[in-house]
């Protein structure tokens, strides 16, 4: 990799250990991805906020780093483990809460915008087409590349952090227009479609595709399906973007058989003790849809609904908050299904969700079984 004189100096530690660490990380990633240089980025979105995911090592690391590190560009962050406003209603141990607070403080000290959301693309203004950003949340990176006209790799927690500290990212992979052009097309052959079908299509695509993939036979996606597709894809593989329509090169069909295989892999129970909605978090559009679907109905079991705090005021003003609470839904902000300590396998054996990403992490990290079904079915079967 070719570095400028200033970058070399920073790498050598001439601007302090924090920047040296940041540049070491960028160089390792650059070498890994055959980058020839570093380029400027305008926005970094960080993952690694939940104490459950980064643990004591992450907490200590961030605490040390935040002593003198300051973010150089606009920087937003992923959800944390719980919602500080409602945490007293859950049986979480004090140590977890304290550790989570330390992580939150470290990020805020470094100058983060306290968004605690995995859907930055829905709650912030999107920069102009073609702008380079560094998004570490996989669903957000895929969404940014595929729907928002931005350019990012599927960044790691540390590469995005290094980008936030330097305003730079290695110029590689999906930052190159040739790589963005897919050489594999997946033909969507499943006829009846909802967000779950698209989540499973994404999960399938992530397993078979390289950096970029074309999807044919897919159109008229609603917001819920778009997000489910991105999140499913981000869970199973390294693929960081998709385009619509058939491309030259190899073609693979995603049919009922393939879909059944994915469903069998992720669905491990025919019922659940608890429902979770949101991974990714629900935006205002989905919350509005949900409020409408719940009209005159009530949940027959606990249902946790995860949203960004940024939409809390609007939800309340539009009457959605009241409608969802009336139906028995528990609204949680700043956190998400994935790796939340609020889903405890000592209390629940299985969880109902419509999220393919949620299903994967509930099973592998929370160690609970999953009953995976569409939101429409959840409302039909779990409410009265």
């Amino acid at each position, binding site marked *: 990799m070719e570095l400028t004189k200033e970058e070399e100096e920073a790498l050598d530690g001439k601007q302090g250990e924090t920047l040296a660490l940041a540049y070491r990380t960028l160089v390792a990633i650059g070498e890994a991805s055959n980058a020839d240089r570093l380029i400027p980025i305008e926005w970094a979105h960080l993952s690694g906020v939940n104490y459950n995911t980064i*643990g004591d090592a992450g907490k200590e690391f961030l605490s040390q780093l935040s002593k003198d590190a300051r973010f150089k560009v606009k920087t937003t962050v992923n959800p944390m483990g719980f919602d500080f406003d409602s945490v007293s209603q859950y049986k979480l141990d004090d140590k977890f809460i304290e550790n989570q607070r330390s992580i939150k403080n470290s990020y805020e000290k470094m100058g983060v915008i306290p968004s605690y959301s995995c859907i930055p693309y829905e709650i912030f203004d999107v920069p102009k087409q073609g702008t380079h950003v560094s998004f570490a949340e996989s669903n957000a990176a895929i969404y940014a590349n595929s729907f928002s006209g931005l350019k990012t790799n599927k960044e790691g927690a540390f590469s995005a952090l290094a980008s936030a500290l330097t305003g730079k990212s290695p110029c590689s992979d999906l930052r190159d227009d040739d790589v963005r052009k897919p050489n594999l097309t997946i033909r969507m052959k499943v006829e009846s479609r909802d967000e779950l079908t698209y989540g499973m299509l994404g999960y399938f695509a992530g397993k078979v595709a390289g950096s970029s993939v074309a999807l044919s036979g897919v159109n008229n996606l609603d917001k819920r399906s778009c997000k489910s597709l991105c999140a499913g894809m981000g869970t199973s593989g390294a693929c960081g973007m998709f385009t619509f329509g058939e491309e030259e090169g190899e073609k693979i069909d995603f049919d009922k058989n393939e879909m059944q295989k994915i469903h069998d892999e992720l669905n491990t129970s025919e019922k659940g003790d608890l429902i979770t909605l949101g991974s990714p978090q629900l935006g205002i559009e989905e919350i509005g849809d949900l409020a409408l679907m719940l009209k005159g109905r009530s949940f027959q079991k606990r249902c946790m609904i995860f949203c960004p705090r940024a939409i809390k005021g609007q939800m309340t003003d539009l009457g959605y908050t009241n409608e969802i609470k009336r139906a028995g839904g528990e609204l949680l902000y700043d956190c998400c299904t994935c790796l939340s300590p609020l889903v405890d396998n000592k209390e629940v054996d299985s969880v109902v969700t419509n999220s393919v990403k949620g299903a994967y992490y509930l099973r592998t990290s929370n160690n609970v079984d999953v009953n995976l079904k569409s939101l429409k079915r959840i409302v039909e079967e779990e409410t009265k």
Partner: protein
Amino acid sequence: MNVKIIVRGKAQGSLLVAKNPINFLGGIDKKSGLVHDKKHDLFGKSIGNKILVFPFGVGSSVGAYTIYSLKYNNCAPLAMICLKADLTTASGCAISNIPLVVAGKNDYDLLRENNQVTLDAIAGKIL
């Protein structure tokens, strides 16, 4: 054999070879280094204190912190050898100071479980 250096360093130890890609966040217990993804071919084994050979990392980018946690908990691999270096593994190794190299397909296929090797990720060689 010659390898491409991603994170510099040196290591000596025995190889642990995975057939499947590794999802560090979902598939590895960060406190023990045990593979707890039941669908993974290394299920039940520890990746600690071995030179870990695997095709590439998959899944959530937060997996980089899992690598850092493994190091912090003294159960990280001594080094890693991949077929393709993904961003999560590269950044996790960079921050944790774990040597990481990429081997070409033909060389990679010669790496066998339990073989004792010396990895020199400064000169870019495996002996």
